[in-house]
């Protein structure tokens, strides 16, 4: 009985936070399917719905704005296809109230938002840029982390732990602090507004080094001894023994690195200016800056921009959890 009770509390807790986590996503998706008008009305929250009046003119239906409704006659604006007040009809028209009807559409999904959003800005280009930058960064991160972590975990040299703790302490410095000095440095390199500026500074990731180091430390010394006797060089050991045993930690590190590069906004915004270098997150800001904010389109664009990373996370989550679960165990 006690078990059921404590379990229920745990699950209630989990469900509560699960809902908290997923609400923004649901909100994003539902907003992306609304018409801008409906979003502005701010009435429907999760399920997009629409209410509007139509005037039935001898079998032909027109969208209208109802100005005044009386028992017999109503005063209306007739709208054209673009939902502007039609010029073919008088601005104020009086029609029989029997011809005016309230239409309720629940749900009403505006899938065309996605098409509009994709056409409005060169998303194909942004996607390509983001994928290119993310993959190059990932390769860089894996190579540097693998080698650095091996040194920190297995090689003996003076000041090893001190350097490692210095590295760790860097994790506590927030991005805005070093973005200015980084900007000046990239300027000196003449790298501003280039792909290097987006990739190279992110090719070292301290958290990944830490993750790899913990994993390497958990591998038994005897494996390395046996490999040394079998005739492996240090690089041979890394390649033939350590690498195959690090699959889950590599998967974890990869997902974190990909998510990080995919979501980075501040850095590419500051370091690049040319439109053809824009990455997704910077591209998204088009909808809230260069034109007036079009929330529904922004949400549609956001939805398809996170889709790839969501899919990757979905497939890798087993590996991630496995590598976390193993992190504390020695054997």
């Amino acid at each position: 009985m006690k078990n059921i009770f404590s379990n229920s509390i745990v699950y209630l807790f989990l469900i509560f936070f699960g809902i908290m986590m997923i609400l923004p996503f649901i909100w994003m998706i539902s907003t992306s399917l609304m018409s801008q008008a409906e979003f502005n009305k701010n009435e429907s929250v999760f399920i997009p719905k629409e209410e509007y009046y139509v005037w039935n003119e001898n079998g032909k239906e027109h969208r209208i704005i109802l100005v005044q409704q009386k028992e017999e006659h109503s005063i209306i604006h007739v709208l054209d296809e673009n939902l502007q007040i039609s010029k073919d009809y008088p601005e104020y028209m009086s029609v029989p109230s029997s011809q005016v009807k309230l239409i309720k559409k629940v749900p009403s999904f505006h899938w065309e938002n996605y098409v509009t959003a994709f056409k409005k800005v060169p998303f194909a280009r942004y996607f390509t840029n983001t994928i290119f930058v993310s993959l190059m960064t990932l390769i860089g991160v894996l190579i540097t982390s693998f080698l650095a972590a091996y040194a920190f975990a297995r090689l003996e040299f003076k000041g090893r732990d001190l350097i490692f703790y210095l590295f760790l302490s860097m994790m506590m410095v927030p991005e805005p602090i070093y973005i200015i000095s980084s900007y000046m440095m990239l300027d000196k390199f003449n790298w501003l507004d280039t792909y290097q500026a987006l990739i190279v500074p992110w090719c070292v990731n301290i958290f990944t080094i830490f993750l790899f180091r913990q994993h390497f430390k958990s591998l038994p010394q005897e494996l390395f001894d046996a490999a040394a006797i079998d005739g492996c060089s240090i690089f041979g050991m890394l390649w033939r023994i350590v690498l195959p045993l690090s699959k889950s930690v590599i998967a974890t590190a990869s997902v974190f690195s990909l998510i990080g590069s995919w979501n980075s906004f501040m850095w590419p915004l500051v370091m690049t200016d040319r439109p053809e270098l824009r990455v997704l997150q910077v591209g998204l800001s088009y909808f809230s800056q260069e034109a007036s904010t079009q929330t529904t389109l922004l949400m549609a664009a956001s939805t398809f921009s996170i889709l790839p990373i969501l899919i990757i996370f979905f497939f890798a989550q087993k590996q991630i959890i496995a590598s976390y679960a193993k992190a504390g165990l020695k054997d």
Partner: protein
Amino acid sequence: MARVEVQKLNKIYDNSVHAVKDVSFEAEDKEFMVLVGPSGCGKSTVLRMIAGLEEITSGNIWIGDKLVNNVPPKDRDIAMVFQNYALYPHMTVFDNMAFALKLRGEDKQTIKKKVQHAAELLGIQDLLKRKPAQLSGGQRQRVALGRAIVRNPKVFLFDEPLSNLDAKLRVAMRSEIVKLHKQLANTMIYVTHDQVEAMTMANRIAVMKDGVIHQIDTPLNIYNHPANIFVAGFIGSPAINMVEGKIESEGSDLFFSSNDFKIKIYPKHKKMLQSYINKPIIMGIRPEDIYDARYDSMAEFPQQIETICDIVEPLGSEYHVVLTTPHNIFTARLEPKELPKMNEELTISLNMLKAHYFDPETEVCLV
């Protein structure tokens, strides 16, 4: 094949722990040499230095005619078997065994033949396609042995290879390794903390403690003629009984006298102990040299010792009995005749011919 010679080997770690002190020994060609000692005595460090896994602070190591101090492990022509097997978890048994050969660049046919041969020798032909995680402890240890055999090294090094196995399997693997040694006729150096393994497997044993070799000899010589108190106490189970006392002279006879009893020293030992008359001395007597006076009164030594029987451990084939006198404790290994009862008196007699005498200060064995 090859002999291994270690000269004045020293290991001092960075934290100035002196783990190995002036260790010298020689393992003859085709010899099975066992380094035995309590944990932390430096025996594994010696082995790792022979393998080239640990840097040498000073001293020389020869394998065959070659000074290998600065030769990397792979070029020393050795193979090593580890306590936790150290199999590569991501490789099949076959790949584990073939790994060194592949690195050496041998061709596929030769590798296959060699692995097959080793697998047959160890009876693991059916396991070649499995991964280490799918094997039992005993099978893993066989694969680890196979990995060593495949390379046909000059010298096999074993670092407590049986410690992770259960007791029954350990006994079986023990004799299998001995058999393997006979078949392969390689030099083998074997490190263990288990004196039973040392006694049963070795051609010669080196007993180590605190980084120093205390005695190197054949198992029986070490058992019968221990060099000092440590060796006498470490080898043999149950452990040898040590009694503090002094030598007294009465007429032409010498006596060993402790607080509880006085017992005549065997004539053969008299000469060696002359200089210790009236001086403190420690007598060692092995459990099997103590007899139940009811059945085995030693005609030559009528002196008997009255004891109280404290603990009785019947093992079936023999009894281990802990006996106390007011100031001493004896462990005796008795024939399974009449089981002594707890807290009852038991008269014992000692086989003084087998007694050892140690100088209490230098701890060296006098007789």
